[in-house]
């Protein structure tokens, strides 16, 4: 059987299949469906320094082969995560990686510092690409200097593996990836959602309470693949590929385009057992194509 392990900034993942932040809750909802120990890793719901109520309902619109969401980082704050949630989920034998968010650089630093104290949390994902909040969020990820600034600041406050999640709503994602690499990121993950919108023609109203929201699902896969490929060719740090992964073939495509590992997002809503099916499908692919290790797939695409 092929070796499924991948290494991200010195941290070993038992396999390259992880779940994307905001699409997997804190994992608990999925215990009804499969053994979470099977996962390569779990990126838990985005958290902030203070609790947030998120945006008003409606927060969701279905689109062609995708969906828009405008959840807006509803969460009870990092302290609640550390005191209430983490103790309940830390027994899972998989990397639990918090996704951190802030309105200011100071917010990010404080959240990172608190998480730095939790010995068993081996990594954080710095979300500078949330399109659904008014202050901060995507703004950090759409300008190179601010992406660098927040990465540098968090880098100083955080000792372990730092993954920076990039926004696709930019002219040149490779440039920003290079920026955060220089600022000390151990890895980048992409893509977060594409900024989109839905209109209800009959009601002549925007569907989402926030007008715009984040597009995810298979609709965005071609854009995500392109960005992963561009970033892979621009940086040396490993890339998490994200965007519309619905099955093992999609996951393999991302790895061939340059991803060292993948995150499965929206697909969890349609088939909560999909991460396990993807792990098995990758194993099967490696066997059929005679690979010894999954890491051989990374960037192995011919042009």
């Amino acid at each position, binding site marked *: 059987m092929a070796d499924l392990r991948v290494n991200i900034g010195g941290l070993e993942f038992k396999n390259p299949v992880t779940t994307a932040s905001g*699409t997997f*809750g804190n994992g608990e909802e999925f215990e*009804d469906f499969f053994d979470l120990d099977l996962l390569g890793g779990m990126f838990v719901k985005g958290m902030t320094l203070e609790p947030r*109520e998120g945006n*008003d309902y*409606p927060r969701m619109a279905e689109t*062609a082969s995708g*969906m828009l969401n405008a959840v807006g980082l*509803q969460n009870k704050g990092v302290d609640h995560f550390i005191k209430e949630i983490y103790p309940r989920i830390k027994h899972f034998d998989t990397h639990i990686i918090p996704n951190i968010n802030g309105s200011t650089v100071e917010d990010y630093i404080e959240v990172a510092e608190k998480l730095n104290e939790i010995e068993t949390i081996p990594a954080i994902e710095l979300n500078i690409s949330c399109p659904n909040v008014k202050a901060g969020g995507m703004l950090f990820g759409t300008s190179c200097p601010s992406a660098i600034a927040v990465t540098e600041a968090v880098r100083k406050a955080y000792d372990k593996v730092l993954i920076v999640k990039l926004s696709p709503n930019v002219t040149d994602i490779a440039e920003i990836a290079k920026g955060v690499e220089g600022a000390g990121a151990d890895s980048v993950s992409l893509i977060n959602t594409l900024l989109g919108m839905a209109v209800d023609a009959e009601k002549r109203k925007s569907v989402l309470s926030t007008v715009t929201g984040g597009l995810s699902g298979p609709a965005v896969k071609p854009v995500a693949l392109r960005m992963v490929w561009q970033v892979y060719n621009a940086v040396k740090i490993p890339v998490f590929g994200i965007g519309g992964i619905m099955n093992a073939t999609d996951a393999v495509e991302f790895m061939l385009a340059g991803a060292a590992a993948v995150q499965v997002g929206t697909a969890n809503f349609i*088939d909560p057992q999909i991460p396990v099916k993807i792990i098995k499908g990758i194993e099967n692919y490696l066997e059929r194509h005679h690979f010894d290790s999954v890491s051989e797939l990374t960037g192995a695409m011919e042009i």
Partner: protein
Amino acid sequence: MSKIIADHVVVEVRYPVNDSFIITLRSPVDIPDILPGNFAEIQIENTTGVFLRRPFSILDVDYESRMISFFIKIIGKGTKKLGEAKRGDKVSLIYPLGNSFSLPEPGKKVLIVGGGSGIAPFVLLGRNLKSNNNDVTFLIGGKSKKDVLVSSLFSGFGKVLTTTEDGSAGEKGFVTGHSLFKSGNIHFDKIYSCGPEPMMKAIGKIANRNGIDCEVSLENMMACGFGACLCCVTETIEGNKRVCKEGPVFNVNYLKWRI
């Protein structure tokens, strides 16, 4: 609570009225306990414009023969396609999801008010209330006669009253205008309601005015249905809550409804 995610086999699709159907499916495994108000997320494959699963209240269940059924109104692409399912087709279901209606003490008098596809949870609720020795009155509203035809589903569990907007069956008007409420003295200990939001709000108002406990079942837009996405929230006195997880059944006074 253990959850099922599995392909079910369509046993029957029948149309009691034109625009709504009852679909019955057989589970490949034993069906866990289903409570009134629980729902399922049904995957409708190969349908242009349908990407996510669709939530539907569980109409009825036969544990012995592993049958589960739904009462579904055709309102868009997904429900239309599902209504075309043929005996033997496979359909993926996830259930049971959500919380459930709470039962009152035995002997208490309850009123159940439903409209449209909102009546689905009331078969299980009616049966449970009957076993619980409650005195049950159903009040079912619709546009016209055909919309309240399905009220026959409830006749085994209590008295059934109807209203229609065009007066073609039962009293003419909306459920909230039913003479039941006009009398001024509404002798119920509990009211349950499911249907269009304006209807539920009006019923909630009547309940509040009369100091009656009232539970409603919401139908928000859902992406997952099992608590993972935070898309389906509703405002409550304790902040935003997930309709699919903390709901769909809420006490009206827990909701931040301006009623």
